[in-house]
């Protein structure tokens, strides 16, 4: 019998609202993606100048991870090589690819070029939190809860991971949707079982398709 896994924290950033464990922490309606993401950074008083250089996908993922992990995850009990990320989205890095393509018409921007892969966001999160475990970024038309659950559970079952962030990080223009779940073997007072259903229909949250 496989060991149960638990969602020990969750974070969502969608429709210009930031929520952690289904509690709204910040909202800034009516702003475009870029100024909204900067407003989240400023609201939480984060201090990580590298944030400003990131593309919007990395800004979104970095913020979601930061809020997810804050006071919810004790990384000191894990080997960095045992903590990984399994993320998916629909638009890959197209949001930045288009911006980069625009610069190519005159002079290609090296700073944009480095973000023309979707998995760069995983690197940004790993650099910040010193995670060195398995990293996977999948591209799906929509959030595939069954696959994400099964693949994550497999990595835990084979011992590749002891803790991991599973989720969806989508951004295209001003449409964005981040849903992250911290998955661990250990439980906590507010933890729920890591099941396909619990990431398919997170309590109080709409289905993450945008």
């Amino acid at each position, binding site marked *: 019998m496989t060991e149960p896994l638990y969602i020990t924290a969750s974070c969502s950033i969608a429709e210009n609202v930031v929520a952690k464990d289904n509690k709204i922490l910040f909202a800034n309606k009516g702003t475009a993606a870029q100024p909204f993401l*900067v407003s989240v950074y400023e609201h939480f008083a984060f201090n990580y*100048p590298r944030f*400003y*250089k990131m593309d919007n996908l990395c800004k979104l993922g970095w913020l979601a991870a930061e809020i997810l992990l804050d006071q919810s995850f004790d990384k000191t009990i894990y080997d960095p090589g045992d903590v990984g990320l399994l993320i998916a989205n629909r638009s890959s890095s197209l949001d930045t690819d288009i911006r980069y393509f625009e610069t190519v018409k*005159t*002079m*290609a*921007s*090296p*700073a944009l070029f*480095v973000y023309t892969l979707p998995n760069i966001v995983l690197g940004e999160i790993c650099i910040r939190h010193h995670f060195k475990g398995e990293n996977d970024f999948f591209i799906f038309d929509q959030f595939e809860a069954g696959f994400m659950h099964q693949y994550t559970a497999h990595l835990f079952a084979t011992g590749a991971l002891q803790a991991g962030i599973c989720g969806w990080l989508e951004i295209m223009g001003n449409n964005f949707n981040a849903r992250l779940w911290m998955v661990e073997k250990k439980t906590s007072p507010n933890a729920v079982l890591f099941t396909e259903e619990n990431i398919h229909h997170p309590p109080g949250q709409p289905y993450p398709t945008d």
Partner: protein
Amino acid sequence: MTDLKRQIVEQLNLQHVKPEDIGDDQPLFVEGLGLDSIDALELIVLLQQQYNIKLNNAEDGPKVFQTVRTMADYIKKQQS
């Protein structure tokens, strides 16, 4: 040098830095402004776009991009 500082902030998207906060002789990399290798490439693009100057010898980079003053001196020298 005021214009150059503004151009650096814009080109490198240093939203947390005001142009006037950059010292003329403040190191641009590592312990100074904290720029990295990608920023170095952006500075090369800046020279080309704003001043039509091509940095042909990559080995000149560390000297040219040491500070705002060394950049300004290099631009003046190339323009004269």
